[in-house]
């Protein structure tokens, strides 16, 4: 019950209040500066900045929650609370523990993402049936972070390591992953880097679904990349969780 209360509060801030603030602060505020220029409107494919930014918040929120839920909570499970050790002491296999963890991540990410979806339903520019597949793909995007970062967390001794995840993965992706401006603006070398990151694929999917600008094969391609990340993440989780639990 207390756990529910805790999740509810964090979820409210991460999945609800933060996107609203970003929509107001960046979408409307910066949007008014952006939309005032005709050249910018061309760069965004003729749409308003708010409509451009809003769907991407589904993917960025999924990334933030997905990555966070697999850092401190995972290390805590190994180190401070020993949850995983006590699970391993029963007849559960590593695979089952990882599966349970995946279910947990999916729940946390979904809760946060659905909060954003509710906000987007309210905004006229983004109210569309495309929100349903967009929400689902955002969850996949979040999970591709949880699984890979979770595997990394299982190899860590001290929580200081998570600073690196924040600084070299989450923050740069947040800024350069195509959420706030089209990645076409990035210089040559950075573009291919954006292409391999799960966030960009997530952003393309959510934006494409909500604004109905995405083609069938593009959807398949982006989904394939996200599933590839999740599969890789799960494989690594299985491996590193086993190494940590039975060392």
């Amino acid at each position, binding site marked *: 019950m207390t756990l529910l209360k805790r999740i509810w509060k964090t979820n409210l*801030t991460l999945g609800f209040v933060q996107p609203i603030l970003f929509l107001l602060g960046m979408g409307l*505020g910066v949007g008014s500066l952006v939309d005032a220029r005709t050249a910018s409107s061309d760069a965004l494919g003729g749409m308003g900045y708010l409509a451009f930014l809003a769907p991407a918040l589904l993917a960025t929120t999924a990334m933030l929650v997905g990555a966070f839920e697999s850092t401190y909570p995972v290390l805590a499970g190994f180190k401070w609370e020993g949850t995983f050790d006590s699970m391993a002491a029963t007849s559960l296999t590593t695979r089952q523990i990882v599966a349970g963890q995946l279910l947990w991540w999916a729940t946390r990410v979904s809760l946060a993402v659905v909060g954003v979806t509710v906000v987007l339903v309210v905004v006229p520019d983004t109210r569309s049936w495309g929100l349903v597949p967009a929400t689902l793909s955002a969850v996949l995007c979040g999970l591709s972070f949880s699984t890979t970062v979770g595997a990394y967390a299982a190899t860590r001794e001290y929580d200081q390591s998570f*600073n690196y995840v924040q600084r*070299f993965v989450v923050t740069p992706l947040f800024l350069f992953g195509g959420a706030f401006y089209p990645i076409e603006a990035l210089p040559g070398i950075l573009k291919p880097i954006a292409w391999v990151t799960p966030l960009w694929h997530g952003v393309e999917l959510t934006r494409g679904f909500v604004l109905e600008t995405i083609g069938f094969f593009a959807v398949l391609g982006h989904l394939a990349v996200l599933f590839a990340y999740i599969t890789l993440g799960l494989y690594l989780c299985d491996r590193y969780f086993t190494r940590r639990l039975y060392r």
Partner: protein
Amino acid sequence: MSQETLVWRVVPPILRHSRRAHRMIERSFYVNKLSWMIVVSGFFEPLFYLFSIRIGFGSLVGDIEFAGRSVSYAQFVAPALMASSAMNGAVYDSTMNVYFKLRHARLYDGVLATPMSSKDVAVGEIGWALTRGTLYSIVFLGCLIALGLTDSWTVVLAVPACLLLGAAFASVGMAATTYMRSWEDFDWVQTIVLPLFLFSATFYPLSSYGVWGWVVQISPLYHGVALVRAACLGIATWGIAVHVAYLAALTVVGLTIAARRVDTLLCK
């Protein structure tokens, strides 16, 4: 009345009673000796932010009319990012970091068993936040100059401006931390810091807020942003005195509450 006591009388009482605060800062140096990589890795953050503003938003948003002249969007936002980064660093160092030491590690219990006082602890921890903050500000300044986002020599004044802003947030942050009872309370920190970041005339001029302008002016970050922006763009107005006074007052109030609360928490 001797010269010395006269000087001391204008110093806030808390600083008068803290003569060993630098030992707390020294401790932090020892701690970071072990994890200097993390400190260095923080240098990348301003670079990422400035870069994304310059190439990303710069291509979407054109020049902006500010203080009677036209500046590029990157020039307009960069000082605000420098101020925000000073705020974030100060808030982190004075909330999460202090809370852990206060409630979990019981670090300060050990410190107070020595000749150190609770005022030394409060002033020293805030001092460390500022030391680190200044280091980051200098790196930020270097990035600003390297990316050609400033054209006035007054830009060096952005570092002391960030120092003052950091002092205000670190003091208030530490005072708030002494009232926190669990990690969940830190959600509130996030809930306060993000709107400050987004709505302190960071991304667009105060005039865009229209009738809500007065709300923005309550935000301490707004005053910090205004100071750093003035330094970067070489603007001198009387408003600067107001910004400085506001931030200085916050610092003294925060610091006084923080030291008193550390006293009641640890010396019962």
